[in-house]
């Protein structure tokens, strides 16, 4: 018996693996609920259609970029929802806490599993963007980088907030409050210059604003002051670091 016990102790993996587990979770959600993939594709288009109806057609390429960034930002609300539901209703987080996985891997796993349903929407919007405006290699790289950073930042925000919720009924209003408000304030769908100065000032504190300005600059959709792109990139990265730091600090892995 002593040998069996020691063998069992020695044989346990000391670190978990994120991608095999959460890729399955994310893929199965999408494959068994195709609507969950179709809706994120349709939603930006419905919104773009609305904007196209009411705004200057010149803004359309900018609006497509905005739709990509908003779709990515919205992953944060899905992360908030999943994380809260798994923890509060299904108690699945307990399984992962009492395992070698670790907090960082778990949070990354949730963010990754929610990137999967958003990916087709982003791909289709990218095709449309290429159709409505020429995009250089540099432009694509900046767009991809901005999407990745926004994905990380807003997933982190969603996860940080989710750990403070005590009831699944709080998920919708809190998620709505945070992500819709952030969507309003950041000038994703129009040039920042048409906003009132006070609003511009507030918007400049938000990571989605830096991402939008950076990509608009890279794609030549706005004319920026020299050096502004570099500044936006730096601020975007800083906000990602802050977001990740907040998530790691605020996310309760062990209850108190």
């Amino acid at each position: 018996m002593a040998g069996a016990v020691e063998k069992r102790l020695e044989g346990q993996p000391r670190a978990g693996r994120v991608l095999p587990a959460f890729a399955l979770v994310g893929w199965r959600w999408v494959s068994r609920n195709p609507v969950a993939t179709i809706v994120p594709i349709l939603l930006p288009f419905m919104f773009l259609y609305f904007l196209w109806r009411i705004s200057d057609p010149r803004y359309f390429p900018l609006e497509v970029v905005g739709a990509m960034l908003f779709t990515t930002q919205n992953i944060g609300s899905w992360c908030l929802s999943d994380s809260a539901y798994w923890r509060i209703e299904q108690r699945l987080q307990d399984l992962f806490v009492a395992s070698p996985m670790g907090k960082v891997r778990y949070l990354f796993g949730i963010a990754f599993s929610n990137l999967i349903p958003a990916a087709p929407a982003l791909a289709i919007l990218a095709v449309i963007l290429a159709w409505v405006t020429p995009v250089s290699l540099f432009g694509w790289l900046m767009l991809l980088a901005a999407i990745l950073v926004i994905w990380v930042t807003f997933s982190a925000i969603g996860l940080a907030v989710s750990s403070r919720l005590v009831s699944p009924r709080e998920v919708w209003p809190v998620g709505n409050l945070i992500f819709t408000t952030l969507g309003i304030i950041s000038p994703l769908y129009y040039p920042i210059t048409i906003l009132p100065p006070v609003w511009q000032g507030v918007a400049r504190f938000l990571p989605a604003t830096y991402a939008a300005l950076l990509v608009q600059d890279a794609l030549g959709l706005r004319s920026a002051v020299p050096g502004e792109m570099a500044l936006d990139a730096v601020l975007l990265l800083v906000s990602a670091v802050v977001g990740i730091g907040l998530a790691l600090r605020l996310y309760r892995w062990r209850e108190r």
Partner: protein
Amino acid sequence: MAFGLRWAGTGVFCATEIRVQFHEWLAILTGTLVQAVLLIFVWVLARDILPIALIGALVYSVFLIGQRVLNEAAYVRIDHKLNELYHASPMSPEAYFLGMSTGIFLAYLPPILVIAVVTIVVAPFGLLPWGVLIACLLAVWSVSASLGYFISTLFKDMKTIWPYSSLITNLLGIVPPVFYPLHLVPEGWRWLALVLPTSSATALVNGAAGLEVLSGEDVLLAGGSLAVEAIALFIFGIYWARRAAREA
């Protein structure tokens, strides 16, 4: 069952639902955020159509109540199974459905009234348009609450619901001319806009308020469609409530 008895308990259940919703005042507050987003976009990009967008915001707010009914009914059934307590009681399924729908409507009235006040300030109009508005809002409430309740019975977990809820909200609330004028819709598609409950309601109110010009045919089509949809879906909602209670 006698008609009066059939609806017994509606008031009490409605009051219960209001209390439940008021506990979640944050949901009530944030329930107007999407409308606020769209209004802000209109204000930034096309300020001249703001009065139409405000009426659209009122219609959309009432339409969203159907989504709240969907979420509430699904949550109570799936996560708590509390519907079974009520179905296995003297309260009829239709009283349950009506009580929940009315309770949520009343609980979400405050933010709707705020938008109404803004509308009065930005685009004041006479009593007749207000009468048309109230009638249309009640019709939209009937349509959306019945639709929401019906959809809530189709799913087994909450996560599966949100894509459908989101699709309906956007298909009926953002794509049609609810926040923008009917005349921006291509001629060949206007009939569809006048048939959909949200855009037909908005068009009728805009027409009554003089914000848009509607022909007699447009008014007939929009008014007739909305009335038929409101009555038919309400009756369907009651029928489905009884059927869902038997299968619960």
